[in-house]
């Protein structure tokens, strides 16, 4: 049941991406081309998604816990650091060059288009290199005392949840 539910949730996301235009680099790049051929549509994608998630999360996070797990794995990292700002800046350069972001490209893989496959291979390559550098070289980027990129086994890189129950999830 758990995996079937998760599959169907992925399907809703994939259909949403397909309808919204986020899987289409031309549309994405035009959104950012304010002085040229501007397509404001993506503001409606972000707006719709954030408003629904904002009210939906408030409702869901009031519950005792999720249906198929015992805690909400909400990211707990609060630090605004060079990693966050620099990483986000580099992501933007890549997004501006290619027109694909991960959330747009993954559903787009379902079309079998070679451009999407090529982008995704390069994307995974970049993630792999970041992991490798983190694990083997740059100790500065390792967060003391918390799971991070070098140790994503349980939660993945965007999830800094502690192992125990999370009393403060509503404040994050």
């Amino acid at each position, binding site marked *: 049941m758990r*995996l*079937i539910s998760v*599959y169907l*949730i992925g*399907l*809703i996301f*994939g*259909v*949403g*991406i397909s*309808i*919204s*235009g*986020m*899987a289409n*680099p031309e*549309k994405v*790049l*035009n959104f950012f081309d304010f*002085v040229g051929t501007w*397509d404001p*549509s993506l503001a*409606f994608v972000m707006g*719709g*998604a*954030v408003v629904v*998630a*904002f009210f939906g999360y408030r*409702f869901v*996070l009031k*519950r005792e816990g999720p249906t*198929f797990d015992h805690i*909400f*794995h909400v*990211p707990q*990292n*609060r630090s605004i650091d060079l*990693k966050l700002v620099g*990483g986000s*800046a*580099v*992501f*933007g350069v890549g*997004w*501006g*060059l*290619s*027109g*694909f972001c991960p959330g*747009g490209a993954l*559903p*787009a893989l379902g079309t079998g288009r070679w*451009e999407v496959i090529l982008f995704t291979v*390069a994307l995974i390559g*970049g*993630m792999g290199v*970041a992991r490798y550098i983190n694990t083997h070289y740059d100790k500065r980027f390792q967060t003391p005392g918390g799971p991070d990129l070098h140790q*994503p086994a349980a939660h*993945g890189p*965007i999830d800094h949840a502690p192992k125990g129950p999370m009393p403060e999830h509503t404040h994050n």
Partner: protein
Amino acid sequence: MEIVNFTPLASLFGGVLIGLAAVLLMAAIGRVMGATGILSAAIFAEDDRAWRWALLAGMISGPAFYLMVTGDWPEITVPVSTLALIVGGFLVGLGVSYGSGCTSGHGVCGLARLSPRSFVAVPTFMATTALTVYVVRHVFGG
């Protein structure tokens, strides 16, 4: 400036579905719907990968479902070079790993949770994306 291909209703509806999926994922298994973390951990993590692959399979089925309902694949027009796809993809992979998230993780889930990190990340990547598009299209004439 010229406004092109504006699709407010389709995009709003797609956005509502994306937000709904994020809420349902939190309700079902208590996870944030971030494409970056899900993909990265599906490939590189040592355990707890089943739900991530199930989610990815669902995402990838999206366009086929769209095809069944509308009779067309979702439009994908790639106005950039092969080199830009490769370099762009690599930089996205690097950036989202260090930045701990992308448009879905920070842009949807993080903003919806009022996460201070996401309120820094989103304007940062929006700005560098816009700057990159400006440079590619209007400085070099891409």
